């Protein structure tokens, strides 16, 4: 796997506290230090309440750290305003959520087009690219369906296509198989492997399942808001 010297994600001493300065102050993340390089498929494992979702929200620029430095593609995220954060989420990050989060009542195609719409891509190019992605995730015959007519696995595949829309450098997947049965969960995982292997995407997968995590080349374990292990190995998938 090729690695550039510069990490895509660089975190140094990241902390996250809620209700700062109040009696019920709550610290979720303690002193997180982390480097993720281009093309890595990293899983972050931890029990619920361990702080892994909070970490993902900070990586995905949905939330801000209380303290510490987070560089995304070498740029400090501290100085970004709301508008810049939106732009980066739009261009650099693709989200895949546990509960799919497709926009109801509009077609799968329109859902996949949405990030491109916010990026200002023309309607024609948008539709072309969205169709291409929908075919890639194996949903070519369902693009006119709205989410209520899709099964869980199908929804998640559309969501992955949407995450790929603006060709982001990172895909953040938060428990992507959590709401799926084993079989469809397997299909979704295979899709991530495909994106990683064929397209060289950097993928950060959050999961509570050690089995899924063991499929990835690097596994971070988080417990009580601290990274307790970071372990890389050569993975051979069948």
């Amino acid at each position, binding site marked *: 796997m090729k690695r550039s010297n510069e990490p895509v994600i660089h975190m140094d001493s990241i902390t996250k506290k809620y209700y700062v300065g109040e009696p019920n102050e709550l610290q979720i993340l303690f002193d997180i230090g982390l480097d993720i390089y281009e093309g890595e498929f990293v899983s972050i494992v931890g029990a619920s309440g361990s702080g892994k979702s909070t970490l993902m*929200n900070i990586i995905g620029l*949905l939330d801000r750290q209380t303290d510490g430095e987070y560089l995304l593609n070498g740029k400090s995220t501290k100085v970004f305003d709301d508008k810049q954060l939106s732009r980066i989420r739009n261009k650099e990050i693709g989200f895949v959520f546990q509960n799919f989060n497709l926009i109801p*009542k509009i077609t799968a195609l329109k859902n996949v087009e949405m990030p491109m719409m*916010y990026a*200002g891509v023309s309607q024609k190019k948008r539709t072309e690219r969205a169709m291409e992605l929908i075919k890639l995730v194996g949903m070519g015959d369902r693009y006119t369906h709205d989410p209520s007519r899709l099964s869980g696995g199908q929804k998640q595949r559309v969501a992955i296509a949407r995450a790929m829309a603006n060709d982001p450098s990172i895909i953040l997947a938060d428990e992507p198989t959590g709401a799926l049965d084993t079989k469809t969960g397997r299909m979704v995982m295979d899709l991530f492997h495909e994106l990683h292997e064929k397209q060289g995407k950097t993928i950060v997968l959050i999961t509570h399942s050690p089995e899924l995590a063991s499929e990835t080349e690097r596994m971070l374990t988080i417990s009580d808001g601290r990274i307790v292990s970071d372990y890389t190995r050569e993975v051979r998938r069948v």
Partner: protein
Amino acid sequence: MNFAESVKMAFTSLSINKMRSFLTMLGIIIGISAVITITTIGNSISSTLTNTFNQIGSTKLIIYPDVREGFSGEWNDLPEDEQMTLEQVQELINLHPDELTYSCNDMYGGVETLNPDGDPIGATLLGVSDDYFDQFKKQIVQGRTISKEDMMNQKNTCIVSEFFCEQYFGTTENVIGKTIKFNTLTGQNAGRNIKLSIVGVMEYTDLEKNQLGINHARNKQDRLNIKTYIYMPYNTMLKVMSLTAKETKLNSAEIGWTKDCTKESAKAYIEDYFSPLYEKNEQWEMHIYDEEQTFGMINTVLNVVTIAISVIAAISLIVGGVGVMNIMLVSILERTREIGVRKALGALNSDIRSQFVIEAIIICLTGGTIGVIIGIVNGILISKIASMVLVTMAAEYAEYIVLTVQPSIPAIIISLAFSMLTGLIFGYYPAKRAGNMNPIDALRYE
């Protein structure tokens, strides 16, 4: 994200909740349709009246002696020597020959004659000015109208009806140039022989034929009993009747004005001439009747009604707007997660804000458009019914009453602009709230 995109998105989300969208619009639909209905009716009445007055001739001022406004003394008849005379009117015209005109249509005289079979035929002699036929839209079917020259030179010319020709000559063919003879019946010169040469033949309208009884005449005797008019220059009438302008009393006179003059100046000239004549009379004065003033009064009433309805409509727009705001707040709450997802996918605060503002505007504008359509349809229907009633009530003017249905374009534009504004004002606060949502809180919202 561009504007067309937002509009399309707004329509999509409105179509998802059709019933709710419709109920939200209802207040706006009612308000706007009320305004458009009333302005359409008002506008139709105005333009119908304008057309009708133009046909009947509102370009005339009618003057007649009338009791002064506010007079509270004992009422007496106007003394004979103070009655309006033709001489006074002619003098008034001669003071401003290029600006004022006198339209004579009310000098009458009964006449009698015998037709070649020896049957007596009655007729009414009517002294008119040269503009009479144009003004009353009489249809000349042969020959010409009375000319200025006929008037000036007191020529013995006349215009008769086709009906009269049938009674007098037994035919309507080749009557131009023929002479008719008859005796006067009324006035100090009763029994005079008058000869007039026919220069034109006119045809009565159906309405006039009904009024004169021509359509109802069943036999020869019925027809002989019908008196039609013989139109002649009023100057000539003075001559053949040996009347002077000074002796000719007028109940009223129609004064017109040329294009070198305005109605206001014409009024002033009339005022200037007659005021001194009636100065010493406490009870009587020369009254100037202006049909357009009546017309103006109707317009004033219509305007007051329109303003009243507009105020009610404004209130209903505000109520409708509050409804829109309420629904937008509910809708934003329901779609909190959607907003979170959109933000995660890269929507800017302003994208979300404009999406919801446009949605509110679209609700209001759609409501406004529906209201405009309902208003126009209502207005046209009511105007049609009203004109049917009017035609029955004022049958003698029926042919002049041509309903012109005209929705008020400014009212439509203003209504649509106001419904847009309502959407903007009442949609902005909820939209701003949506735009400023924190993405992570919105995404977590259950």
